């Protein structure tokens, strides 16, 4: 994650990479570059809160396995984590709306991969948003070229730029190396010691 001032836009800009997210109440621009990954921009305009994630599933999935296969858990986490951040900043779940970008067929060039991962990522994001009743106001997805995204967290406007081949090639290399890893404490279990040993009223089903 990188924070800088963008003189062209006259605003601070936060650049996120794969597996990262940013949420804010400030007038900032959130930027990222996408190949087969997907960025979901969420906003509650009434509360003046917005955020964006950038994620990729661990493997292509069929839609019926999105919420049940292990490969989907990083995507579920990415979406939930962003929603939670916005709620903490004062957003209302009922007022959230979304814009979705990315999911290009760029890893289709690799020997081991197919273009399906980009499509899977997009469908996954859309399925999640539908299940959570979050309306999608706009999307720019699919195709064969990467995208640069600039999301104005204050206005909700998004500028999308198709990447030229040079920057695009670097992006593909980065995505091939990327392995979803949400945070080091994921899956950490703590069992508290102050547990009641048994229910004196007995077990019931």
């Amino acid at each position, binding site marked *: 994650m990188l924070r800088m001032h963008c003189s062209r836009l006259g605003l601070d800009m936060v650049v996120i990479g794969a597996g990262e997210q940013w949420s804010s109440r400030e007038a900032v621009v959130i930027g990222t570059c996408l190949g087969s990954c997907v960025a979901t921009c969420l906003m509650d305009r009434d509360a003046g809160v917005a955020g964006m994630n950038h994620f990729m599933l661990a493997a292509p999935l069929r839609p019926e396995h999105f*919420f*049940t296969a*292990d490969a*989907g*858990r*990083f995507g*579920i*986490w990415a*979406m*939930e*984590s962003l*929603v*939670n951040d916005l*709620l*903490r900043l004062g957003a*209302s*779940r009922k007022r959230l709306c979304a814009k979705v970008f990315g999911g290009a067929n760029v890893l289709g060039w690799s020997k081991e991969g197919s273009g399906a991962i980009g499509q899977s990522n997009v469908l996954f994001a859309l399925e*999640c948003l539908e*299940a*959570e*009743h979050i309306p999608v106001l706009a999307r720019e997805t699919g195709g064969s070229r990467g995208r640069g995204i600039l999301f104005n967290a204050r206005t909700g406007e998004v500028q999308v730029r198709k990447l030229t081949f040079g920057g695009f090639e670097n992006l593909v290399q980065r995505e091939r190396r990327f392995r979803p890893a*949400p*945070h080091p*404490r*994921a*899956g*950490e*279990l*703590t*069992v*508290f010691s*102050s*547990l*009641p*040993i*048994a*229910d*004196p*009223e007995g*077990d*019931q*089903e």
Partner: protein
Amino acid sequence: MGKKILVVDDSAVLRASVKFTLTSAGYQVVEAHDGKHALQILKEMSLASERPAMILSDINMPVMDGITFIKQVKQTSCKFIPILVLTTESQETKKAEGKAAGASGWLVKPFREQQLVDVVHKFVRDGH
């Protein structure tokens, strides 16, 4: 018929994911979308002389958050039901809040399916 597990989470996607995992492992899952809804379900189950074998609850939820929900459960006849917190929060201060409220355990998302099943088995079978 498998034992009932009450899953409390405002995310429909999370509930669907956990439900699939636990029903595949032989449990019945009852869903609630926030703490207030979960308390209502527990009340209805009590009236039918039922009780879940375990409760899995998120922390960050609208209407009634997980910590408040756990505190409320501990004031009822359901206080002996083990409550495992499933959350993206991993800070020690948050965990301490959960422990003080009466949670039995804390599992940081995302977790593997088998990990969840193992933990639920342990709590339900060992009578934690």
